[in-house]
């Protein structure tokens, strides 16, 4: 019976101590739609002076007087479409994006994360553009605008 007793004690100890995972909470709980400005030859990003960029639905200004080659835009989690208005050198452009939401609970420590996928450009007034990826991921360019 000694073998059984040894098995009993050792496996109880291993069973009680085996499962301890440390979650990774580095990511924010939403990702942004990243727009990059690229030259008309489609070769390299260009720095653009943005007068203003705002959300059409609620008028909230996301960018005010900034010089950038790319910008991250927060999409509306309460809707499946968000329309942005971009003003550069007194020229206004509008673009609407459509997306699907899904949610993932990461862990008790990290909480939930909101993910956006199946992104489409519904309409835009840019001369030329391209959608690179249809999922919102951290620091990944989704959309290029050629100027």
């Amino acid at each position: 019976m000694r073998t059984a007793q040894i098995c009993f004690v050792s496996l109880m100890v291993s069973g009680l101590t085996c499962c301890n995972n440390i979650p990774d909470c580095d990511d924010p709980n939403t990702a942004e739609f990243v727009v990059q400005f690229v030259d008309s030859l489609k070769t390299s990003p260009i720095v653009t002076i943005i007068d203003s960029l705002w959300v059409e639905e609620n008028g909230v200004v996301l960018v005010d007087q900034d010089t950038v080659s790319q910008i991250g835009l927060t999409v509306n989690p309460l809707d499946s479409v968000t329309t942005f208005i971009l003003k550069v050198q007194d020229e206004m452009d509008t673009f609407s994006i459509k997306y699907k939401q899904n949610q993932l609970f990461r862990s008790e420590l990290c909480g939930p994360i909101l993910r956006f996928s199946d992104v489409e450009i519904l309409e835009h007034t840019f001369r030329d553009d391209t959608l690179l990826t249809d999922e919102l991921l951290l620091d990944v360019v989704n959309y290029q605008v050629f100027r």
Partner: protein
Amino acid sequence: MNFYLMSSTIRFFVSSLLLTATFGVAAQKKFVPHTLMVGVEVPSIARSFLFSKRNVGELQAAINVLSHHLAFEYGFEDINRRDSLYTFKTNGSYWRGGIDLALNPKNPRGDVIFFGLRHGRATFKNSLDARFQSEPYGNPQLSWSNKNMRGRWWEITFGLKVNVAKNLMLGYTTRFKLTPTITGGDTLAPYDLPGYGRARKSTNFGFSFYAYYKLRFRKEREKPDDGNTL
């Protein structure tokens, strides 16, 4: 080998082994059940009293097939995770069925070291209320839920049951859980699968500690003592 093929292979292997074990041992000798063991998973009850966010419980019934046992387990889980930004709830029930093959069938005391297989199934739902950091839209409070999710998985088990008093046994089961499949979780990805553990992990370990009461409804034939007292 892709995951689906691997999963199917494991299922086929486990099913074959289970059927062979069950009917093989019963066919060798006359199958005369004499003892039903009814067990309660003690730590789950303790956790329910100690931690308000978890209300869990599990029962096991096992009937002998010669020196082996057919086991059936039923449990429920009501898990409530929350902090200042979210409340995430999962609740549901599960069952597992399978066989425990005794590795020491001639033990005169009736103590059992076993290796076993289980198939588990769960029915459950989840819901999430969360405030997201999305300043342009007022950091909105959002809610999602899945009301009818189902899960299934397989387990390879190993454990021990020891007689501690007349009709009373203590024992544990260690579980290697694998090949989970979940349906109905389209709206909100499941985090917990009742009876299995973390839903996104392709394998899980589990540990159950039971206190059993033995109900003898027929006299057991005496086992020959051949010196193997393991």
